[in-house]
């Protein structure tokens, strides 16, 4: 187990490095002078003085390799540089907002698993029946509706019309736990919806496959009742591939967070990101993109480890 975890951590670190390099390269691979590009708007040529200033500010006048070395060196002690707009260091802002985004993602993942796995199992058990058709239809609808449409509709119905919860915002947990949770509910549910649909589809396919396995017949031959068979010998085994897909879907999930945070005024990373992109504050955008990507890699690492706990064979293979 220890060797397996060590290997996974190593792979995760390599991924972090690769992603950082890719992000660095994007600016330099786009044809044209980076500083000019960042200042260009429409067809008007940017002011040469401003370009020169930006160039020296971002260190773009140094050789590319030197820039890369400095970039990586800064990253190793989590230094994301300073904002172009107000010269404030970026790292503290990230540290403040990251936990809020993380909270949303975790809440959504928990909601999606709690609903998606049982519904997916039900759909597989009633394969071909009306309940399976209904669940599959709902899943397709959930997958096709963009999160910002769902979020906006929830605000319209629950905040504007029914007035049950406020339209959005944020209160720290320590200040008022109840209000914190009530504000968390809508954005978390919104992010969870498409993820639930994915979980339903995956669980259904996976359960159908496990139901065909010999060991399920053994479980029946033991005289076990349906409940224990489904829980211990079907769902438990079916979860392994579902977890993997959860990892692959993390990217879309985190992307969805950006939109949902915006809809509900949740002060996570994304409001920050949207403002940074609007202002075309490159260092800020890079900082946020990197932190979210690292988060993505980290979550996948956790999923790999969960995988090994669920399926003892994994530790030996690979």
């Amino acid at each position, binding site marked *: 187990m220890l060797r397996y975890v060590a290997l996974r951590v190593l792979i995760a670190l390599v991924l972090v490095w690769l992603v950082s390099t890719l992000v660095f390269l994007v600016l330099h691979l786009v044809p044209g002078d980076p500083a000019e590009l960042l200042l260009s708007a429409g067809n008007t040529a940017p002011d040469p003085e401003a370009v020169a200033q930006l160039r020296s500010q971002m260190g773009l006048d140094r050789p590319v390799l030197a820039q890369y070395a400095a970039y990586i060196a800064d990253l190793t002690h989590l230094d994301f540089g300073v904002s172009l707009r107000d010269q404030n260091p970026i790292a503290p802002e990230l540290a403040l907002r990251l936990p809020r985004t993380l909270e949303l993602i975790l809440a959504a993942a928990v909601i999606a698993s709690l609903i998606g796995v049982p519904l997916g199992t039900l759909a597989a*058990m009633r394969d071909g029946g009306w309940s399976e058709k209904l669940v599959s239809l709902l899943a*397709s609808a959930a997958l096709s509706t963009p999160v*910002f449409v769902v979020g906006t509709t929830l605000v*319209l119905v629950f905040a504007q019309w029914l007035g049950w919860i406020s339209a959005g915002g944020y209160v720290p947990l320590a200040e008022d736990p109840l209000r914190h949770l009530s504000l968390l509910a809508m954005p978390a549910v919104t992010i969870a919806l498409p993820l639930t649909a994915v979980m339903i589809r995956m669980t259904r396919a996976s359960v159908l496959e496990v139901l065909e396995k010999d060991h399920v017949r053994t479980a029946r031959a033991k005289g076990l009742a349906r409940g224990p068979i489904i829980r*211990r010998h079907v769902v438990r085994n079916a979860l392994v591939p579902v977890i993997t897909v959860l990892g692959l879907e993390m990217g*879309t999930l985190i992307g969805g967070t950006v939109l949902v945070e915006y809809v509900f005024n949740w002060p996570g990373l994304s409001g920050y990101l*949207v403002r940074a992109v609007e202002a075309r504050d490159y260092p800020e955008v890079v900082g946020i993109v990197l932190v979210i*990507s690292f988060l*993505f890699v980290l979550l996948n690492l956790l999923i790999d480890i969960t995988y090994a706990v669920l399926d003892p064979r994994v530790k030996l293979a690979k």
Partner: protein
Amino acid sequence: MTRAQRSLYIWLGLAAVLIAFPLLAPVLPLQPTIGMDIPHRFAGPSAANWLGNDEYGRDVLSRIIWGARASLAVAFGSAFCAAVIGTILGLLGGYFRGITEVLAVRSTEIVICLPPLLLAMLVITILGAGVLTLTVALTILFVPNYTRVVYAATLQTGGLDFVKAQEAMGTHPLKILARTVLPNIVPPLLVQFSLTVASGILLESGLSFLGLGVVPPAPSWGLMIRAARAAMDQQPLLLLWPSLALAGTVLLLNVICDRLQDVLSPKTAARGGAAWLRRQIKRTPDAPAPEVPLLKIEDLSVGVALEQGSMGLTKGIAFEVKPGETMALVGESGSGKTLTGLAMTGLLPNALSVTGGHAWFRTEAGVVDLAALTEEEFGPLRGNDISMVFQDAAAALNPVHRIGDQLAEIIQCHRPMPKQQAEAEVVELLRKVGIPDPERRIRAYPFELSGGQRQRAMIAMAVANAPKLLIADEPTTALDPTIQAQILRLFAKLKEDNPGMGVIFVTHNLAVVKEIATHVSVMYAGQVVEQGTVEEVFADPRHPYTKALLASVPESDAERLESIPGTVPQPGAMPEGCRFAPRCGHAAAACAAPQPLLDTGEGRTTRCLRWADLWKDVA
């Protein structure tokens, strides 16, 4: 045209009709999408403006149709560009391998580590918002998907013979790629294309919603939702129309993608899931239960349900097992011996079911018909009164649970007891079946045991509750000869420990029959052809098939008997008369009629009407 194809074309047709609107937008009599009409701000639907007017009084319908152009242009544009670039990279990587592979395929995979929306935002920061930037950003995002799909397909086709032949003939590699490989990767490309277009529409509208995509006042669905959100307390309908258009379009694309996959790779698996999970109707017995000492099978038939009706697999199986006896069911694969064993425990595969007959079994509560029990009624019997040992222990054990837990489960299921007590019993059981160091072995997972040990664990499970009837389905077939011998000795020992236990031993190996069984039923093509005690049947076979079996090297372990000319008839094409007739050297005119199981005295039966003549021949 198959059903799946028809369904795909209907959906594609619907998509074509819908796409025609934005394509024809310039010539349709639509109202202007820009400009202001303050008096009509937030007006509801009317004859002139079917969907109403927005916050500037502009016609919503025409903005939706024009907005579709933006979404579709970005989505189709980026999906197309990405398809071209990704296909080229994937083809090169898959065909030339080596360093090209690293550069073309592996490098694009890093992009996948970045959440899609974020990469797009990074590009927008550099290039500024706008339709062109969006298309560039999405193209970069989608390239890896295509590269991966094409790469995998190219690796497959690259190894095909006709590609190799062209290579050998010296055809230029690029020509080979264009002519033979490319057409083969079209199906996965189409699926990928519909997926990326859907995803492109979602990303475009998402970014426009954030104000980072299409630049106002140009119409776009994302922008319309953004504006409607700000004004939703005044006119909630404004939110509805673009949301419907957006979700509907994506749903349509997803459905097309699903149908496409149905057409390209038809699922062979039968729908309907596991039959045992469905509610079963309790059957009332159609015959009074006879007095039986342990088990009496009467006229048992198993069939498979097909679209054209049901097809018989076994017919009229009958035999009896008394306490302490071991009945061997022997025959070639496909003779129906395994099905008979499974039918008695209600564990037949999905499409198969008992189509007639009875399997009377004595329980504490009286005699029951195993062929008519529901899944619920079977529960208390299985693993307790009747238990099974399966052929492939590696598959029959659950890979994710420890051996000890899987054994404790069967004990606690029928005799509730605390965990510790069950565990102690499991250790004893494992010791009894000869697994060394059982205290530690209970912690092991199935994959950590050897094949022989797994089968021992399986057997321990079967005898855990001292069953009255043990059904063993080819329990030694998957094992090597030394282990086989050990397992057979184990069965003999368990029999000594529990002398009242009846055993049904399913095998194709006559040597095993001789060693383990007291009685034997020889099966051929779904029927029992001869029965008797092992001693008598082996010494004096009364059916030509048994005779041939015994003659064809009794030690042999072959699944099929090569020494008897001809093959076992297929279930759909059974001869009317004696099923062995096509391969029988003694076949006569009378053999063309259905053969009953004849009583030949001394408790023996045979399904050969000429047995007496043949017997005389031998004598």
